[in-house]
């Protein structure tokens, strides 16, 4: 494998790992403050215990999020020095703001996790809010950097030299809004469904358990409120991509020819050589309707771009379908849950729903990973869209296979440990029998 491929793989692997913890870092604090808020309001001890139990899990996730994020900030230079050389002055600003958001978050994580006995309940709750807000802000800031790579703005390029830098315009680039909204919602969706799955699992064994009922309820409120918004936001993202990065859109849709009345293609096998996508399910005129509002609207295909500027159509198209499919499935789960609750609460009695929620737990994260594959692989061969090619940004360092293997092994180990320890958190100290309905006394 070439060093370029290895560098890209290492970057992709590190980000794919970090994003899981980052998304939980945005979602978990919200769940925790909701639970703690319910406790402040209702004084039911079950909510306080829930909040504490979630906090235990979140502490592990936060630590791994922090270390894997640190790796990333160095990797930007270790793998892409030429990129940082050009981009630093333009888009370093949001990274610096992100630094402050991390700082606030890290400080109040300390206050929150270790301050149960040292703060009044309301102050403690407020500290949780600060964690939630600063976590969300750090996600927002860093995503604007990524948006800038997709829609570079705020500078001029004269003979290969960057001039007229405007960091504010760079941060508020045309892709920022849709990426920020879509990613933030994604964090809530993914956290909500994965947490719901854990508690649905325990409810299958012990449907009367108040603790898990409360947890499932809160998680589903968060997940269910965000998934419909996420579908709307995804549609908005697709329109923005059609405007800003038509080649990426064409790859997402596996759409080789520029034509009026474009169909939506679902699945299938895109083939660059013949410029056709075979075996796909077709929805006639669908793409034209979605993007132009007109069944005869024209949609640009890949043939309008030189082949050297094409991203990998298969990766981008399949990833896009996976994301949308996962989104639809989660939307379905949310509808089912809402309907079940409306018809015959509590949810804990709907065993098939619980089973479906357990099975659907990973969908949010699958969608996040697939969505990022769309965004990042779809930007190729550019690291800064239409400005700098990825191959021109890669480090001259040889032997990149070594760090790639080392970090892959390290992250696999961490992932295994995190899974094991989270399991411990729930199985050991929270044996389902321990908290069946009326026995709600201790805190």
């Amino acid at each position: 494998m070439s060093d370029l491929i290895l560098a890209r793989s290492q970057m992709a692997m590190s980000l794919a790992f970090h994003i899981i913890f980052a998304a939980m870092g945005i979602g978990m604090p919200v769940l925790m403050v909701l639970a703690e808020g319910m406790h402040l309001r209702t004084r039911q001890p079950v909510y306080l215990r829930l909040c504490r139990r979630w906090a235990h899990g979140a502490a592990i996730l936060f630590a791994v999020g922090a270390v894997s994020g640190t790796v990333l900030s160095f990797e930007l230079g270790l793998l892409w020095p030429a990129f940082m050389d050009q981009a630093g002055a333009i888009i370093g600003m949001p990274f610096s703001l992100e630094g402050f958001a991390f700082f606030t978050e890290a400080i109040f994580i300390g206050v929150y996790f270790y301050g149960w006995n040292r703060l009044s309940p309301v102050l403690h709750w407020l500290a949780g809010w600060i964690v939630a807000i600063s976590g969300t802000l750090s996600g927002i800031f860093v995503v604007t950097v990524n948006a800038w790579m997709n829609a570079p703005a705020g500078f001029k390029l004269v003979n290969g030299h960057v001039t007229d830098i405007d960091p504010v315009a760079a941060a508020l680039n045309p892709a920022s809004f849709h990426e920020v909204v879509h990613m933030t919602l994604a964090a809530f969706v993914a956290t909500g469904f994965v947490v719901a799955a854990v508690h649905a699992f325990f409810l299958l064994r012990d449907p009367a358990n108040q603790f898990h009922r409360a947890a499932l309820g809160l998680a589903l409120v968060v997940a269910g409120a965000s998934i419909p918004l996420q579908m709307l936001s995804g549609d908005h993202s697709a329109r923005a991509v059609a405007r800003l990065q038509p080649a990426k859109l064409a790859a997402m849709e596996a759409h080789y020819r520029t034509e009026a009345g474009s169909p939506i293609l679902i699945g299938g096998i895109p083939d660059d050589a013949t410029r056709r996508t075979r075996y796909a399910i077709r929805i006639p005129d669908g793409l034209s309707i979605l993007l132009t509002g007109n069944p005869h609207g024209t949609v640009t295909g890949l043939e309008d771009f030189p082949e050297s500027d094409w991203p990998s159509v298969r990766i981008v198209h399949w990833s896009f379908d996976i994301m949308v499919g996962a989104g639809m499935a989660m939307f379905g789960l949310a509808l089912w849950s809402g309907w079940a609750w409306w018809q015959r609460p509590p949810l804990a009695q709907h065993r098939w729903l619980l089973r479906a929620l357990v099975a659907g737990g990973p969908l949010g994260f699958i969608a996040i990973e697939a969505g990022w594959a769309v965004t990042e692989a779809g930007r190729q061969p550019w690291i800064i869209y239409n400005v700098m090619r990825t191959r021109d940004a890669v480090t001259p360092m040889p032997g990149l296979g070594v760090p790639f293997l080392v970090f892959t092994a390290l992250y696999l180990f961490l992932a295994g440990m995190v899974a094991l320890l989270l399991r411990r958190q729930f199985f050991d100290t929270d044996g389902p029998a321990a908290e069946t309905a009326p026995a709600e006394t201790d805190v």
Partner: protein
Amino acid sequence: MFEFIVIVFLFLSLILYALMGGADFGGGMWDLLATGPRAREQREAIARALGPIWEANHVWLILVVVLLFTAFPPAFAALTTALNIPLTVMLVGIVLRGSAFIFRKYDSSAESVQLHWSHIFGAASLLTPFFQGVIVGAAVSGQIHVVNGAVTSGFFAGWLTPFALACGVFALVLFAFLAATYLTVETGGQPELQNDFRRRALGSGFALGPVTLVVYLTSRKGAPDMFHGLDHWWAPLLLLATSLFAIGALLGLWRREFLLARFAAAGQVALILVGWSLVQYPHLVTPDLTFANTAAPEVTLRLLVFALGAGAVLLLPSLAFLFYLFKGRRTATQDRPVK
């Protein structure tokens, strides 16, 4: 002007990282070296001290990195290229340190499991600051060359010299000393533990002397700029002040005035780093890259200064609150045990 303010913030963040994050690494080393009948209690005291603050302390490093690549992007590109290998090793250390610490807390409390994580935590706490010292040493070594933005001295220049390695050892001993001194204050009320850490602090404090000498001697060939930096008019004054703080720290430890010792040790470390920054300035990577020739355009620096100002207004009170909450009062007994 803005450039200068950013530089001050950069060095300040680095110093604060050493004072806080450095001590956390030192804590990890003493965890690894925990011995005697109270080994377990030592480990628990260390874990209690680190628990609430290590993530916040760690962010100083991230601040250094983002400031560097926003304000001096070519320097970041050159450093990450020339020092790719030691930086990568340091990162592995950072990952293992942070995760082993938290895994230990949430894994089974069985002695063997706990020890297993302790060893990883401790080993990573040795690895990371050692390489941080090496990296800082390499940046002043004068052996990393950059021509037209491209590193021409390869991937091994500067960091495999006796001087850089001595800097690594210096960082280890320095952080060990800081940590042990802080821990004497943290263990107030537990005289035996306090004694353990007092002995460790004294030992590492005295060890700092010869190690400093080695750094100085190796710098003659390994970092001539640094060696001759001591010719500046302010050098003797700074040296004097640093020595006074060092003596204050040792005396404080000796006479069991631990608050004084903590203050003096922190002052000593801060002054060492101030001296180092003064010698380093105006170079970022000696000899080819200076702050001036790698600085981002004025707009970026100006915005960054505003952001830093606003950030400081928000952060410093929060940070003060964090330390007040967990370090201000002698409330160790209120804490829930580490498990």
